[in-house]
């Protein structure tokens, strides 16, 4: 009885650990999904961008010519709306071509832009002055602008799953933009809550983008860490302001099913060989931070630990069962002397082992559930950061960096044009259980019992009753 208890407990420990680690790994995957969801948005499987040719754009210009003598001392203000993160434009016809691909459920184009506003005062001019001073006092502010296609409200940065507050406002915006109507001549914009707070904007306010005045329909909140813009305008307006007629710089694509993503990726690559095609998996590979560390731990160390413990439990069960059979030699010899066939005795041993497995499985499930509960209760909040997007590469590039320009303080990162730091999302790790995990655990325990029983039964079957009965205990 004691050895049976030890076998059951050993199996329970192994099974409990497998359940806990599997649940934790599942929780990490869920957390990763949350991260990807917040960064990527449900409904978007693939994004397509195209990197600008390095050096092809010429030097960055504010559009301000060096001052002549008459302009010295005059204030200036310049706005420039450019494609973000080193992305170049993509013809709108490519969006149509992608949406016509097999296995593509939908595709929509957008413009992700940086608006740079420079104000200052001309002094002696840029470059060296007669006194040797080269500084022209100016200040820079930036904000991000997304030009969103109002014909596809379910896809892209303003899809419903990205909005945490202002869903009806977004819906209204889509309807009004699609109808092409507005109460004033100014195009309509939506503003993120963080930017609205910063610049004291609200419904009815106006903002200037590249010299054009845009009216704010309302303020919305987006999921934490989403690659959110500060301002959302209709795609047509963004194209007009940038001069990118019938062009986009980001295409959002949805596949028919998750199993088609890889196929669609290949098809798009074939269609657009120079494009950068990013899937959720690619994004997942960029995720760093404590969540990434937890994922590595759960997937590698945790999994191998669970497998090792389970194997140890199986071996222990087999050894103990065989040892128990050895101790019960006289008992089995007596049964054979009474006319019991070997197969009946083997069946007895197997039956006992399966019961041990069931008991071990039940205990293991209890232990595993407790373990998963403890993981959910005491696990720290994890942080995930999407890796930096270097200049010239496509993909997600919004973030904050630091660049101090001129005498003023930069409110928005001028560095977004060149490089961006990662987006961070915090998630609470859970360890969700599923019926499949529990059923697998019970199956493992029964398998362990069966293996032990088969080995023990084989030993019992080989017993010669005469030998067994001669043995002195």
């Amino acid at each position: 009885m004691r050895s049976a208890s030890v076998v059951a407990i050993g199996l329970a420990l192994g099974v409990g650990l497998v359940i806990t680690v599997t649940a934790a790994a599942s929780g990490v995957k869920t957390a990763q999904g949350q991260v990807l969801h917040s960064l990527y948005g449900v409904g978007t499987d693939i994004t397509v961008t195209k990197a600008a040719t390095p050096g092809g754009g010429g030097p960055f210009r504010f559009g301000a010519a060096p001052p002549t003598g008459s302009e010295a001392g005059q204030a200036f203000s310049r706005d420039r709306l450019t494609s973000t993160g080193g992305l170049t434009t993509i013809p709108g016809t490519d969006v149509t071509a992608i949406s016509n691909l097999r296995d593509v459920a939908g595709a929509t184009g957008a413009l992700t832009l940086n608006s740079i506003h420079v104000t200052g005062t001309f002094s002696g001019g840029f470059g060296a002055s007669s006194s040797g001073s080269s500084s022209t006092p100016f200040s820079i502010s930036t904000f991000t602008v997304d030009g969103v296609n109002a014909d596809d409200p379910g896809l892209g940065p303003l899809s419903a799953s990205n909005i945490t507050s202002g869903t009806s406002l977004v819906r209204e915006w889509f309807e009004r933009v699609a109808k092409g109507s507005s109460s004033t001549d100014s195009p309509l914009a939506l503003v993120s809550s963080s930017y609205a707070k910063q610049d004291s904007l609200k419904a009815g306010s106006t903002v200037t983008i590249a010299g054009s005045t845009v009216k704010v329909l309302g303020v919305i909140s987006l999921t934490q860490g989403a690659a959110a813009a500060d301002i959302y305008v209709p795609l047509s307006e963004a194209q007009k302001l940038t001069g990118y007629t019938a062009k986009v710089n980001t295409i959002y694509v949805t596949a028919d099913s998750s199993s088609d993503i890889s196929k669609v990726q290949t098809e798009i690559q074939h269609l657009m060989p120079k494009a950068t095609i990013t899937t959720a998996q690619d994004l997942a590979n960029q995720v760093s931070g404590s969540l990434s560390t937890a994922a590595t731990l759960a997937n590698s160390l945790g999994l191998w630990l669970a497998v090792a413990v389970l194997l140890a439990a199986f071996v222990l069960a087999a050894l103990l069962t065989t040892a128990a059979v050895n101790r019960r030699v006289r008992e089995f010899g007596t049964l054979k002397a009474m006319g019991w066939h070997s197969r009946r005795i083997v069946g007895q041993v197997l039956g006992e082992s399966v019961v041990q497995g069931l008991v071990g499985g039940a205990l293991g499930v209890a232990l595993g559930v407790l373990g998963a509960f403890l993981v959910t209760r005491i696990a720290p909040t994890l942080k995930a950061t999407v890796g930096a997007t270097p200049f010239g590469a496509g993909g997600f590039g919004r973030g904050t960096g630091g660049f101090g320009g001129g005498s003023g303080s930069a409110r928005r990162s001028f560095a977004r044009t060149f490089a961006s730091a990662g987006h961070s999302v915090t998630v609470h790790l859970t360890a969700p259980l599923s019926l499949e995990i529990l059923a697998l655990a019970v199956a493992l325990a029964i398998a362990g019992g069966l293996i032990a029983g088969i080995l023990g039964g084989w030993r019992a079957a080989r017993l010669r009753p005469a030998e067994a009965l001669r043995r002195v205990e």
Partner: protein
Amino acid sequence: MYELKNVSRVYPKGRGKVTALKGVNLVIRDGEFLTVQGPTGHGKTTLLLLLGALEKPTSGSVVFDGQDLGALPESRLVDVRARNFGFVFQNYNLMPTLTAAENVEAALVPLRISTAERRSRSLAALDDVGLADRAGHFPSELSGGEQQRVAIARALVKEPKVILADEPTGNLDEVTRAEIVALMVKLWREHGMSMVVVTHDTQVARQAPRTALINKGALTLRNNVRKAVQTQPSPGAASEVGEG
């Protein structure tokens, strides 16, 4: 019932071998009570194992009811044991996790009779040995004598043709020993089966009309006429003597 002709049993031991029995000739008739005596390690238990089809002779033949036990495959021997032989061991060999009644029932499992009949017969067998009121007790809750009674009930419950007992009183005190021997003799009389009892105890040995004496693997027979229990019918004076 039994006819042993020139039976030898040799065991390999390391590089050599051990001859446990050599050239044994023996006839045991239906209903006969035979005891077997001899020094330890001289072949008594080996003889019992051969009679119980738990061993096969190295040479010679062991014929039981016209069947050469040495020639039968194990699968047939299992059935022969199940129907014909009841064993009683020195250490009782009860299953510790089964009650007294369940231990007795275990002997009936190979006979494939119904659960109800098994239970009924096991209770009757326990009643025969005076333990009907202990049917639900585990071996650990029984004294040595009571455990041996359960073992005897287990041997008897299938109504075997032969009871084979290996030192059934070896672990018992003198008083209990006498009780068990008396019980076994009583049951032998009542049921009429053959009984072969291996024993060191001369008092026990002389309870039988004949004693087989084994010395260094060779068997001789001794008649215990004066103190023997008379069987019904008498076994007669016929006996085979064999020496190695």
